[in-house]
């Protein structure tokens, strides 16, 4: 039964209870982290093997075409699956928090920044990975801190370490390093978030 004559203490208790019960189910976000974790890891390892195979066959003129094909196809698949996942999540959604909006904006800006970083690095003829890892690290660490999930914040920090590490690795093994970075930064925290208690 609900009453209307409340003491100030009771009022504060009601406010506190309403706020503490109001939790967004961030386990849903794990699906997106896992999706991109797998897509990008696969793309990195595929890229490593494409380079290895084509270089061994001395088919250097085909490297560009196969590399672009690998990334474009996998990223397109990623976006299609993401659209389906988001549509399913929104169907079951009963409340929209401000925080979710902030995280969405953060990642939209991160994706644009990665795209711009990619264009700049082509123009300057430098490896894009250190900058891309920095942007991914910022996005992942900030998301981890916002949803208060330590493994994701730590995963995000590993991107910063990998960003520095890329400068010490020969270009031949950059894609393997990138795959390892995504496993540490997205896949492991993604699985931990998926299995975390609410």
């Amino acid at each position, binding site marked *: 039964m*609900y*009453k*209307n004559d*409340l003491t*100030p*203490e*009771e*009022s*504060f208790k*009601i*406010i506190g*209870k*309403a*706020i503490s*019960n*109001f939790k967004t189910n961030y386990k849903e976000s794990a699906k997106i982290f896992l999706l991109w974790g797998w897509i990008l890891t696969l793309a990195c390892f595929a890229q490593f093997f494409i380079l290895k195979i084509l270089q061994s066959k001395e088919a250097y003129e085909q490297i560009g075409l196969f590399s672009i094909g690998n990334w474009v196809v996998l990223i397109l698949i990623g976006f299609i699956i993401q659209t389906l996942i988001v549509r399913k999540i929104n*169907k079951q*959604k*009963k*409340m*929209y*928090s*401000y925080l*979710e*909006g902030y995280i969405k904006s953060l990642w939209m800006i991160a994706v644009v920044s990665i795209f711009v970083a990619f264009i700049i690095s082509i123009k300057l003829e430098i490896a894009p990975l250190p900058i891309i890892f920095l942007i991914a690290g910022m996005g992942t660490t900030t998301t981890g801190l916002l949803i208060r999930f330590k493994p994701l914040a730590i995963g995000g920090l590993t991107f910063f370490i990998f960003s520095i590490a890329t400068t010490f690795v020969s270009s031949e093994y950059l894609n393997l390093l990138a795959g390892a970075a995504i496993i540490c930064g997205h896949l492991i925290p993604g699985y931990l978030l998926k299995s975390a208690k609410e």
Partner: protein
Amino acid sequence: MYKELDPLLHSQLRLAIVSMLVISKRVEFTYIKEQTKAASGNISIQIKKLHEAGYVEVEKTFKNNYPKTMLSITDKGVKAFEDYVNDLKKYISPK
């Protein structure tokens, strides 16, 4: 001198509803029902009072052919909630 608490917010169910809305962008009616465990009719009456006072906005749509009611708090509602909490604080630690 104590200020009189806003009677619209000084009610268990209405206060619980407004507290939920203050920290969210939009909330579905069924979520409020799940959280408060109150009867639909009772929640509807309280939301109507809050809506008439201009504290909440009500948006009625359809989801999979079923009616869906989304609620959000207005600026007036946020201000009223802030004032209510500030007035409550004076009751607890009068200075």
